[in-house]
């Protein structure tokens, strides 16, 4: 027996070397890494783009972006550039949408996985996927034509935080539901059988056992949904009223960061344009913060 401890000299090491990926596999492996790198690089590029464009406003205004007396922007520093009402607006609409959507989405998935009629399950799954396919303009139109007048009857003018949250909730529902569903499907059947064999009803099994194993899916769904809700533009533009103010009730109109960008980027220049990019940067920061807390909550649940 070769007693040398040098790895290179041993036959085992030779084997190891000869078994490292080779031929087309090595290429595939490299390709995978390259793709992953590419994705990361593109992300950095976008963030860098937004950050660069924001630079001017951040340098010129600094904390004024949160403390100015209002949002009356101009091309130079004589304007007022307070983004706080928009941040609050974005957060409120997105979180309210999430609060409405998450329980319904999870309920839908519980239903799908505990229902004993296979045709109903398939039909329901297809319906959720269909919902995922409705374009945001259509959601926006529906909100404008159906939801806003409805809410307007309660309290005029109807364009409000609530209107935005309702439409967004419907829009992000399939994202959360499909993610939770696919994670649930990857849960091995034996866990399900184990629960059922204890005499639990199917829906309790999903609720208490399967969902636990699939929680990473629910969290990922919530993250994607939040990102979408925070980043959505068309819908909020159409139904939220776009008034810059700190709301005191969910029936009041507000302007979100995205709506602000969409409304003003079309003609903004100078500092105003840069401040709008700061909005974009803030949105990204908000998403990061929310992701972070979602993961913390997820850990608590685990």
């Amino acid at each position, binding site marked *: 027996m070769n007693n040398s401890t040098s790895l290179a000299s041993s036959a085992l090491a030779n084997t190891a070397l000869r078994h490292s990926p080779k031929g087309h596999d090595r290429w595939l492996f490299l390709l995978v890494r390259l793709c992953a790198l590419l994705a990361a690089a593109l992300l950095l590029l976008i963030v860098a783009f937004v950050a660069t464009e924001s630079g001017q406003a951040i340098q010129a205004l600094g904390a004024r972006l949160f403390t100015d007396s209002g949002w009356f922007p101009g091309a130079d520093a004589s304007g007022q550039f307070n983004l706080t009402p928009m941040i609050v607006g974005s957060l409120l609409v997105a979180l309210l949408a999430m609060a409405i959507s998450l329980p319904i989405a999870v309920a839908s998935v519980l239903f799908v996985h*505990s229902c004993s009629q296979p045709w109903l399950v398939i039909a329901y799954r297809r319906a959720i996927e269909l919902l995922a396919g409705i374009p945001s303009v259509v959601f926006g139109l529906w909100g404008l034509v159906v939801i806003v007048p409805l809410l307007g009857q309660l309290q005029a003018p109807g364009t409000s935080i609530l209107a935005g949250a309702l439409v967004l909730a419907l829009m992000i529902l399939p994202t959360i539901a499909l993610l939770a569903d696919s994670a649930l499907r990857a849960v091995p059947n034996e866990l399900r059988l*184990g629960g*059922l064999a*204890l*005499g*639990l009803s*199917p829906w309790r099994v999903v609720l208490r*056992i399967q969902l*636990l194993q699939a929680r990473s899916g629910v969290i990922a769904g919530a993250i994607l949904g939040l990102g979408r809700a925070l980043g959505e533009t068309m819908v909020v533009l159409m139904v939220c009223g776009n008034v810059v103010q700190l709301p005191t009730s969910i029936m009041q109109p507000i302007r979100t960061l995205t709506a602000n960008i969409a409304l003003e980027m079309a003609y903004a220049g100078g500092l105003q344009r840069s401040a709008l990019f700061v909005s974009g940067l803030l949105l990204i920061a908000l998403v990061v913060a929310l992701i972070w807390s979602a993961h913390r909550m997820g850990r608590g649940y685990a």
Partner: protein
Amino acid sequence: MNKAILAESCECEPALQISGLGVTYGNQIALKDVSLTIEAGSITAIIGPSGCGKSSFLACLNRMTDLTAHCATTGNVELDGVDILGDAFRKPAQAAALRRCVGMIFQKPNPFPLSIAENIELGLKEHGVTDKAERREKATAALQAVGLWEEVQHRLGETALTLSGGQQQRLCIARAIALEPKILLMDEPCSALDPIASQRVEQLIAELRGRYTVVLVTHNLAQARRVADQTALFWNHGNGGELVEVAATSLLFNQPREAITKAYVGGECC
């Protein structure tokens, strides 16, 4: 250990009358024409070679067959005079109630991705034991019954997936007996257990005699001999498992009627 609540909640007379039972998976026959009576409070061992339909047989007794794709059953299984293979029990609530009375321990241990304690307490909680202390007490008793208590008492909060193979198996047994079902279906409960733990479980099964009805699949013939009141031998001749012989255990082992039985129980085995 307060047995009142749970024991009461499952009121059936735990005797099984199986006649003409068959199981198919798609067009593959797993089991055919099994007729068998299982007395209340008795221990029945099912033996036979791998793939002869033992697990499939057990699955019929609490309708786990419903949960396998393309699986169909024929014949009937009467529990307390009711055909549990009938359509009435297809409804999830009825099936759940049935499984509450007819507990099952799987061949492959499948602990939930929960803590060790929660694995046992989950079932209790779901079945209406609302008092936390009572749940913990029952869980402790179940863990002690399977001889796992000493090993895990200091780590009840750890996830059950970190247990060793034999520990997982005993946890699954504890999980089932904690609910005190009237009938207990055990699929090779000692397969991952060393002699000591095995003996403990056998002892547990023997203790259950009279109060519970046990159907035990085992590949350990000596074990069948030691604990079972009656033993059934299944065999698969290549086109679906069949019941070869069923008799009181001592009879089956000492005076087998069939040639196959004779060969199997007399074969070289531990």
